[in-house]
């Protein structure tokens, strides 16, 4: 069967499964809508958390980015897993004991202030929308390549599916669809990785495979990769390119940001007991680690395969996948030396890097671009996002594997989008309406409102997908930096310091937020020409600056709270209660 038909069958079956689960697990109360009634088994919650967490970026982009960044890519591997240790040890059990619905709930109650609640709501909405924009782009890419519908239709189909299970089922529906989505995505990720590992090294375990020798030559895979890359002018794959302080700060910002992301934290409100919150964090990280330990293996396989297949090959002899992705516009080839043969070297092939295609074809039927070629010898532009999707084709795996990967990528994007939509809708209906603007609404009205805001959020997310803002990639740094600099310190101090009061917490959040946001906005949007090591504060890039924002938040909060009056006695009682699992 051809790829197209197989993809329709596999993706269609997966979608039918998600909808069936949604119909089976409809939410009937706000408790079920916000936190699935607080009765989810820790293993199920662990899987749901993993699916929630592993987005289109983890599934589609991460291995590709590491493939091209080499060792520097470690920041994502450590950064997006290490945060779970912070979450499990510093936040999850205590927030579960607190036992309300949302993150702003905790901040509002602990700091006895609706201002604090409002600041938390603003941070949360900003972080979540930033993230969703990225998911919808992922859905668009997969649909346009594998289902050959245009991106807009693809996004609308994706929106409709999420709409059904998020609006009907709330957290309850989302949780159980996410369990199914985790199974789909991890299977889809592992199968090609195992295949490729066997083909290249003979070892069926990819994690060991990329530390083994190649089947074709008596040399370790990573050593071979270094040699091949050095030959064509790249640095070694296993060497750092960024400065160590920058690597350190980016890793820390991603870790702390992960622990401060509201859609992840809220998952730990869904389990029955404090003990389950801890266990559940363990399961979540285990399920995440399976993908994250495989990704760096996939990255090194893919890079070596890519160089071997593409470099020094006549354009006419390139495999189908190369031309398919070229048609979509994510690969381009500019025949600089007019020999009809592809030269892949380091450096950007084109001025302004991203190709702008004309409608014309060149001498070899390649797509032509209007960009001026650069003076280096590189002739290839490749979008890093396609590595995982193209990997099975590059390695010549059977068609059903390619179809499976498409279903997995969609599962990853949809599950994360649904989790984020729920956080946004609960922030609006619960924190903004019920707790701040109109406390008199009944539970029924609140539930309706939650559904309406989820539906609105889906439409906004869809618009992001159809008209992707050009700055999606740049603002991802925002989401993590802001979570690290605003929400995380407020939560940690709320639990570990009884003396912290509302003035300290609010000033801390605002100063951390302002500092981080202005640093990122300055270097990414106002003056991108200064965005290099020379001008960075202590040599820290905008991606890593959230750490400094966090330190500022902590310092300001501690100073302000020590010179203002301590929190009321009830707050001391709240803190005492959340520190102990059982009893009052």
């Amino acid at each position, binding site marked *: 069967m051809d790829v197209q038909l197989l993809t329709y069958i596999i993706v269609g079956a997966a979608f039918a499964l998600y909808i069936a689960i949604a119909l089976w697990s409809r939410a009937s109360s706000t408790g079920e809508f916000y936190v699935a009634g607080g009765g989810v088994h820790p293993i199920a919650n662990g899987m749901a958390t993993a699916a929630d967490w592993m987005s289109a970026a983890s599934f589609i982009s991460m291995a590709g980015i590491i493939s091209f960044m080499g*060792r520097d890519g470690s920041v994502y591997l450590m950064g997006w897993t290490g945060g779970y240790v912070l979450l499990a040890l510093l936040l999850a059990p205590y927030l579960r004991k607190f036992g309300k619905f949302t993150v702003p709930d905790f901040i509002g109650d602990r700091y006895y202030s609706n201002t604090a609640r409002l600041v938390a709501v603003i941070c949360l909405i900003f972080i979540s929308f930033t993230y969703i924009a990225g998911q919808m782009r992922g859905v668009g890419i997969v649909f346009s390549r594998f289902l050959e519908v245009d991106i807009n239709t693809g996004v609308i189909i994706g929106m409709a599916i999420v709409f059904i299970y998020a609006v009907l089922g709330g957290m309850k529906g989302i949780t159980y669809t996410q369990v199914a989505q985790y199974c789909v995505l991890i299977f889809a990720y592992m199968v090609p990785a195992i295949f490729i590992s066997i083909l290249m090294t003979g070892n069926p375990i990819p994690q060991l495979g990329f530390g083994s020798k190649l089947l074709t030559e008596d040399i370790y895979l990573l050593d071979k990769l270094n040699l091949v890359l050095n030959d064509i002018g790249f640095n070694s794959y296993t060497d750092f390119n960024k400065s160590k302080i920058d690597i350190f700060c980016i890793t820390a910002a991603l870790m702390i940001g992960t622990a401060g992301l509201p859609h992840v934290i809220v998952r730990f409100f869904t389990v029955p007991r404090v003990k389950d919150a801890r266990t559940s964090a363990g399961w979540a990280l285990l399920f995440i680690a399976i993908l994250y330990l495989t990704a760096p293996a996939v990255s090194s396989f893919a890079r070596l395969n890519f160089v071997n297949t593409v470099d020094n090959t006549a354009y006419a002899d390139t495999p189908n996948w190369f031309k398919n992705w070229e048609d979509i516009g994510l690969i381009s080839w500019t025949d600089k030396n007019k020999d009809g043969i592809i030269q892949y070297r380091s450096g950007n092939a084109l001025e302004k890097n991203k190709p702008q295609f004309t409608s014309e074809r060149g001498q070899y039927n390649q797509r032509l671009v209007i960009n001026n070629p650069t003076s280096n010898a590189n002739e290839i532009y490749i979008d890093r996002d396609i590595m995982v999707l193209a990997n099975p084709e590059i390695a010549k795996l059977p068609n059903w594997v390619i179809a499976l990967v498409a279903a997995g990528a969609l599962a990853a994007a949809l599950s994360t989008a649904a989790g984020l939509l729920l956080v946004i809708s609960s922030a609006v209906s619960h924190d903004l309406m019920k707790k701040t603007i109109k406390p008199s609404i009944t539970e029924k009205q609140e539930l309706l409102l939650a559904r309406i805001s989820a539906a609105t959020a889906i439409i906004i997310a869809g618009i992001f997908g159809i008209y992707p803002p050009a700055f999606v990639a740049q603002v991802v740094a925002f989401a993590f930096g802001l979570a690290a600099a605003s929400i995380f310190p407020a939560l940690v101090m709320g639990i570990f310091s009884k003396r912290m009061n509302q003035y300290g917490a609010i000033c801390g959040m605002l100063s951390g937020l302002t500092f981080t946001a202005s640093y990122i906005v300055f270097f990414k949007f106002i003056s991108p020409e200064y965005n290099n090591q020379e001008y960075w504060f202590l040599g820290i890039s905008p991606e890593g600056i959230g750490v400094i924002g966090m330190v500022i938040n902590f310092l300001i909060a501690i100073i302000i709270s020590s010179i203002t009056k301590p929190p009321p006695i009830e707050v001391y009682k709240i803190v005492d209660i959340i520190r102990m699992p059982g009893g009052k």
Partner: protein
Amino acid sequence: MNKEKINKYSYWKANLKIVSILLSIWFISSFGAGIIFSDFLDKIKIGGFELGFWFAQQGSIIIFVLLIVIYCFLMNRLDKKFEVSED
């Protein structure tokens, strides 16, 4: 201080001790082995992996999972000892 208060105090102290020890290991295995001391560790090679590289892309993640498992075990034991467990 009454018995309940002493209990609360020593439970929290024991909790903080567990958390700080585990977080030190968390820091050493990721920021330490994967970044700060990676040049030194890279001189050691196991199979095709330079050790610092392995820690940054594999080892640290494995240790993270183990840390949470150990944390669950220690905290459950502590909850039982202080009779604050929810069962």
